[in-house]
């Protein structure tokens, strides 16, 4: 193929990729892709086939594609196809890379065959399209997961409002109204209702609460026979009932059908295990479908309606409900507080001690996300059982909410006693739980607070234990941590830190550590990333996560950023001069979001480069998506200027912002740093592998260098090599280290006659 043809193909591919990635969502990307492909090949017809369906098409008369005919032609690798209403066309198709079933298809009227260049371009376009669609699919899944979580949150809020109504002993009608309103809102239906079987006539039910029903309709269906309509069926059959095509179904309430309701769902409401009524939702939207998730939500509302009714009928039960967690039966936060108050009062009187353990399950969300909420709920029940088994009679275990538990140890003889209980709990959690047929291992983090001879009140103690729990979490999962008095002065500390941070530059308290970036193909040291550390005179080495956010908030990041740049260039320039093997050693420096849109950035960088006599092509400035998207125009101007100076630009944490992939790719960047969240565990997670591979391939097609951050295992390294990622960085390869250690390695490499041996990673 000639250079011109190759140039044409790569230019077309780059434009194609730009067009599809800026589409914003999967369907639009497929639409654009197919139109673009047909236009580029000057063809009339195009289609995307996925899993036996046409997911996008252009040019087919009336938008109607004879799918079977087309798929058969593609499968037979036919060169021609007769399209109804259009005529005889030349056909070309290319398979998707990641999905054997997917194809990009283009058909052109007339008999001029597709050239070799066109076929090559088709393959490239199919490849880019499939990768882009994969990324969008992964994104869609993530978005829907997020939406599910939000929905879940809302459900919990509504349910807890209903619980509160029950415990507050609100009038039953108010509670039921809250239930119907909540069900209608969460299930996004036009109407919701609770019906109860008449006490004196078990064949008739009455409407006791409704939301969204016009008053005249509510009057019409105020009484209805059991066994008719979704509600009637749910009551008669004691099961959740879903009805579609309401008007055409047998045994419906004609008044509702006349109101245009087309879909309905109802769940039985019980008292002491006996069906006494139902809760239902109904929709007038054609095609409304109630999926499994919807059914679970309605079941949850039915459960609460049951509680409310049971409560209204038995006050004893009510007492328990007010102070116990519905799911696990453990005392709730209110009861825990009450008992803690009593225990503290006793301790003050008897000069004893009280300990509080705060337990939070690690990665509980994963269980919910992967196995569903029912499994999550089951896990919470099982955990509470194990928790009870670890305690002595006078101690109290409570569920505070979500995956948070608290334990009150009365008459604790001291911290040691509390720690023993904590260890016992952590040990008890260790054996895997059996949930929906899978073995699930989960750990917890425990914070411990011990009353200091009657000083504390219940709120303070729980807060202290909570703080300690967070410290325990930071130490890694499955551990416990004792509260220390220094902990809650953190806020005060922050203020102090701000003052000290302001003086740190003058006092020369910052130091740079350097983390090697390794060429994944050769294992050679490619460059180093400069990372700032603060050597605080009293606190010791302060990690960046503790002061960078503060520096960003206060704007101090700007002078600190320039200091880092100058220092890094000076240091790396010295290495370039001192070690012949490092003469082309590059350096990466992070630019803060506060620095990027600043008008003087390029000038300052220029000045520092000149002062330090540093080759601009060996400097890579790393920016984040967030920094670019804050003010895209200013950022673009800024980056273009840096580019003109010959500085390289890398997009840091790529993949985390995501909302506008195409948008970001418009900036003049040279490299993509694939965020660690897609890299760590890439060998074991198909999802991560798909995203990482798509990003790396995309980078390759756009001639961008790709860097994988956070490589921690050999398996991950092997995967990234297989994906043909250019550079890698991570603890497995080398941790960030002080300059002198880099120097030692360079020197060792020099003696070994090559810098390579020191950083080489086994292939």
């Amino acid at each position, binding site marked *: 193929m000639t250079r011109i043809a190759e140039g044409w193909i790569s*230019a077309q591919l780059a*434009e194609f990729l730009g067009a599809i990635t800026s589409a914003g969502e999967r369907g639009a990307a497929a639409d654009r892709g197919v139109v673009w492909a047909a*236009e580029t090949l*000057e063809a*009339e017809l195009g289609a995307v086939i996925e899993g036996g369906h046409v997911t996008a098409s252009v040019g087919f*008369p*009336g938008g109607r594609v004879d799918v079977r005919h087309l798929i058969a032609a593609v499968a037979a690798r036919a060169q021609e196809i007769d399209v109804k209403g259009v005529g005889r066309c030349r056909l070309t198709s290319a398979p998707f890379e990641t999905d054997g079933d997917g194809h990009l298809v283009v058909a052109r*009227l*007339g008999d001029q065959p597709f050239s070799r260049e066109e076929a090559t371009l088709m393959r490239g376009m199919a490849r880019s399209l499939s990768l882009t669609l994969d990324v969008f699919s992964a994104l869609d899944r993530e978005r829907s997961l997020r939406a599910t979580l939000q929905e879940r949150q809302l459900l919990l809020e509504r349910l807890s409002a209903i619980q509160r109504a029950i415990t507050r002993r609100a009038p039953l009608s108010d509670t039921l109204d809250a239930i119907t309103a909540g069900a209608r809102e969460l299930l996004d239906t036009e109407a919701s209702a609770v019906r109860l079987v008449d006490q004196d006539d078990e064949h008739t039910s009455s409407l006791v609460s409704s939301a969204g029903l016009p008053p005249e309709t509510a009057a019409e269906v105020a009484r209805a026979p059991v066994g008719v309509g979704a509600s009637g069926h749910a009551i008669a059959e004691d099961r959740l009932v879903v009805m579609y095509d309401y008007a055409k179904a047998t045994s419906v309430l004609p008044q509702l059908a006349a109101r245009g309701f087309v879909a309905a769902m109802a769940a039985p409401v019980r008292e002491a295990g006996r069906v006494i009524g139902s809760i239902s939702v109904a929709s007038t939207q054609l095609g409304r479908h109630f999926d499994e998730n919807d059914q679970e939500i309605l079941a949850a509302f039915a459960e609460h309606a049951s509680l409310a009714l049971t409560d209204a009928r038995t006050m004893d039960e009510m007492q328990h409900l007010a102070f116990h967690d519905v799911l696990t039966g453990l005392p709730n936060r209110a009861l825990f507080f009450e008992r803690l108050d009593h225990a503290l009062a006793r301790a003050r009187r008897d000069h004893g001690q009280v300990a509080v353990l705060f337990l939070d399950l690690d990665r509980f969300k994963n269980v919910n996300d992967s196995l569903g909420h029912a499994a999550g709920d089951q896990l919470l029940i099982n955990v509470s059982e194990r928790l009870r088994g670890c305690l002595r009679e006078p101690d109290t275990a409570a569920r505070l909410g979500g995956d948070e538990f608290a334990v009150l140890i009365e008459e604790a003889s001291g911290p040691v006693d509390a720690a023993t209980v904590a260890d016992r709990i952590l040990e008890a959690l260790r054996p895997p739980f059996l949930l929906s047929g899978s073995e699930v291992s989960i750990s917890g983090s425990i914070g411990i607070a011990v009353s200091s001879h009657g000083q504390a009140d219940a709120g303070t103690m729980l807060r202290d234990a909570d703080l300690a729990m967070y410290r325990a979490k930071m130490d890694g999962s499955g551990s416990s941590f004792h509260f220390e008095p220094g902990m809650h002065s953190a806020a005060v500390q922050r203020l102090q830190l701000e003052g000290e941070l302001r003086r740190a530059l003058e006092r020369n308290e910052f130091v740079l550590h350097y983390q090697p970036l390794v060429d994944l193909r050769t294992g050679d040291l490619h460059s180093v990333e400069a990372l700032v550390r603060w050597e605080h005179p009293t606190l010791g080495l302060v990690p960046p996560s503790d002061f960078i956010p503060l520096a960003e908030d206060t704007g101090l990041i700007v002078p600190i950023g320039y200091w880092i740049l100058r220092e890094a260039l000076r240091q790396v320039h010295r290495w370039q001069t001192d070690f012949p093997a490092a003469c082309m050693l590059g350096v990466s420096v992070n630019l803060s979001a506060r620095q990027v849109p600043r008008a003087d950035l390029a000038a300052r960088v220029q000045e520092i480069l000149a002062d330090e006599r540093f080759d601009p092509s060996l400097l890579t400035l790393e920016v984040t998506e967030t920094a670019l998207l804050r003010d895209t125009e200013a950022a673009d101007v800024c980056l273009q200027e840096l580019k003109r100076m010959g500085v390289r630009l890398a997009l840091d944490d790529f993949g985390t912002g995501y909302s506008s992939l195409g948008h970001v790719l418009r900036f003049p960047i040279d490299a993509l740093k694939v965020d660690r969240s897609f890299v760590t565990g890439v060998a074991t997670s198909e999802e991560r592998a798909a995203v990482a591979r798509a990003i790396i391939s995309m980078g390759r097609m756009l001639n961008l260098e790709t860097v994988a951050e956070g490589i921690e295992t050999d398996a991950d390294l092997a995967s990234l090599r297989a994906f043909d990622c250019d550079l890698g960085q991570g603890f497995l390869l080398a941790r960030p280290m002080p300059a002198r250690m880099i120097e030692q390695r360079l020197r060792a490499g020099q003696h070994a006659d090559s810098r390579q041996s020191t950083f080489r990673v086994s292939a």
Partner: protein
Amino acid sequence: MERSEQNRWFGVGSSRDNESFAAGEDAARAAVRGGDPKLAIVFASEAHDLHELLAGVRRSTGDAPLVGCSTAGEIATTGPGESGVVVAALGGSGFACATAASTNASERLRDAGAEAGACVAEVDGKPNRVLLLLSDGLAGDQQEIVRGAYSVAGAAIPLVGGCAGDDLKMRRTYQFHNGDVLQDSVVAAAIASDAPFGIGVQHGWRKVGEPMLVTGSTGNRVHTLDDQPALDVYLERLGAPEGVRGDAAAFTRYAMTHPLGLSRRSGEEVRFIAEADFSDRSLGCIAAVPHGGLVWIMEGDADSVLNATDAACDDALQSLEGQKPLGLLAFDCIARRGVLGDEGIAREVQRISDYAVGAPVAGFYTYGEIARTHGISGFHNQTLVVLALT
């Protein structure tokens, strides 16, 4: 003027009356030459009171669907005109028409094209269909509008039409739909007929010199040709006069007759160069110039432009399967008018009329032409599009 063929008729009328209502009424009355009018097509100068004008037209055409637009000059059988109005009407049981309009086009070009074009689904049951599109040429990337219309029309239905003008004021153009005067919109008329349509598309520019590789472009902007700043290459290749090298207006006038030609599989496509950036030395075109493609600088003169007129008419008539045309609609680029001059365009319209062999002609000078007979791209620059009805 009129001509009728069994169950179909097509007529054209024009008026130079300054009084808008009367001008519209008179032109339309002359155009309606049969019973059962199915469609009125109005091309008028924005100098008219357009509401009055449409009211006048509808006095003559009644409730027949109406589409049209403002122009940069009108074309009628009697010759080219300015500040006037030309009305074409067609009717009879052999035609079926449906129209639609879509507004706020500049914010959603593709959707607007699809919305207006959707009327094509309303005329079914006749063997031949064509979709006529009239759009606001100042609304943005017109290819997007054509893509939208294509998405609903599909490969079996050709698209023709043009972008509305405003007598070269380049401020705002108008589109007409029934009695409404719209802006920033796309209007469409789906015409179905018992008899075939013929479409001809020609530009009449010649390649000058060797081809160049587009080594840098983004959308409509060409940054480099053969790795050199595009403006420098352009000026140097043409040996452009000193006066156009630093003056924006002079450059645009000069560039109007020196477009870029893109190499396409099915021949070359012309890109009008609208402006140059004298500081970054790039060229701004009216439609996209793909990176990596081959381009030529093109030039034209009165002869080559008139030859294209012949060729377009020839092409349109050739697909009529030997039938005589009932009438012609012409969408002619304003830039061609620039090359031909006033006398030249009179000769051009005369030639079109000659091809029509007595059948009436209507059309206008456009800010961009639409003709899709193959492929998907159907937006053209500096081109003459001829639609022949039989």
